[in-house]
């Protein structure tokens, strides 16, 4: 349970599937998108097949389709999470330097990453859990965070023990500075602006003050926000 709330909450946090569907609703046809390993990969299946969104995987493919089934598995096609995936019609294959030129060169419309923490400045920490961790794995996270035209984060609003993940300053080692533009959590959708965190949606049954109580930095009300 989150923090020290005295009464049982009257709201239902979004499930991971519902979070994925919420993110997918904001991805228009024509975008080239990289989904980070973990929860963000769920978003691909929520984009309807007739909406042409092209998914990029940093190990060298554009036009990634769903995870392979035993019937259509090709052992030579994997994604960045090393799952066997399929290729859509129109897919292309290329080497790592081209793949990261796509990323670093600003050609992706969107990168969606998971994170440990996001700061109100847009700083993001998602690769190492402490300054002393022996051998953290960075993979492509730092390249994706600075390279895509938009960086969105998808994560739980708090840690399992209720500590805020939206904070004034990240306590974990940074992946990138001033990079995140929008955050989708199981409780809210939040824009990261020059003003700081601006709330544009809150899950039904949760008030703005309830959300603030679960957040480690000041929240600002967005223009279209319905809740009190």
């Amino acid at each position: 349970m989150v923090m020290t709330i005295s009464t049982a909450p009257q709201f239902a946090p979004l499930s991971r599937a519902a979070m994925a569907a919420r993110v997918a609703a904001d991805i228009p046809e024509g975008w080239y998108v990289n989904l980070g390993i973990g929860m963000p990969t769920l978003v691909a299946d929520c984009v309807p097949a007739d909406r042409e969104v092209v998914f990029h995987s940093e190990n060298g493919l554009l036009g990634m389709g769903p995870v392979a089934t035993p019937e259509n598995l090709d052992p030579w096609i994997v994604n960045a999470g090393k799952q066997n995936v399929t290729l859509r019609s129109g897919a292309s294959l290329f080497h790592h330097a081209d793949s990261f030129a796509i990323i670093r060169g600003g050609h992706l419309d969107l990168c969606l990453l998971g994170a440990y923490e996001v700061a109100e400045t847009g700083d993001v920490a998602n690769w190492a859990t402490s300054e002393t961790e022996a051998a953290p794995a960075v993979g492509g996270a730092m390249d994706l965070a600075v390279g895509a035209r938009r960086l969105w984060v998808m994560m739980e609003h708090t840690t399992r023990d209720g500590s805020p993940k939206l904070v004034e300053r990240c306590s974990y080692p940074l992946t990138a500075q001033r990079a995140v533009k929008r955050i989708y959590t199981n409780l809210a959708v939040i824009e990261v602006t020059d003003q700081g965190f601006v709330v544009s949606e809150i899950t039904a049954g949760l008030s703005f003050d309830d959300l603030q109580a679960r957040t480690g930095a000041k929240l600002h009300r967005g223009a279209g926000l319905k809740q009190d």
Partner: protein
Amino acid sequence: MIDKRVASIAEAMAGVPDGATVLVGGFGAVGHPYALIEGLIEHGARELTIVTNNAGWAADSGLPKLMGLGRVRKIICSFPRGSSVFDELYRAGKIELEITPQGTLAERIRAAGAGIPAFFTATAAGTRLAAGKEVREINGRSYVLEQALHGDVALVEAWRADRWGNLIYRGTGRNFNPIMAMAAELTIVQTQEMVALGDLDPEAIVTPGIFVNRVVPVPYGDPPPARAA
């Protein structure tokens, strides 16, 4: 006649010295030159610096085996995960680690092959992976100076090759292989299939033979089944 084919993996490894920097292709199990790594183990070179994306994959073959034998002094990679062998050696202080963001790793290798000694990238600016590196502000944004990464040797897996060393790849097996082939003094290729000169479509060749020194046919078959990590 130019003929880069060699008859055996042992012959392919001839002259790889102790202390070499070895670029190893592959992303996960796909495009990973398992047979050449086994050949490197047999060859016996020591004090190696290995440049590769993952610090090993299947525990009993390839890089973890090479590391477990104490042949690797240092690994340069983006993702030191996938095998417990690396973890144990690293915790025991028996192997050095340089973590490099994946795109920076790729570009350092490409730069080496392209004759570019160093380059600026926004990747890792303001993070601990920029520690000790020159940072310059260009048009209002911070960039980190990264150095080209040359190999003494590159180990590459191709799908098809000819005797000039022209290569094509299969699926996502391309990954680091084409840029590593460009960046080493000695590029050694294992290919699933050897074809006659002229049988590869010039329009479709990914790695021109100029980057390749030795080719050994190894009908290795499909990569092992993928597992997430």
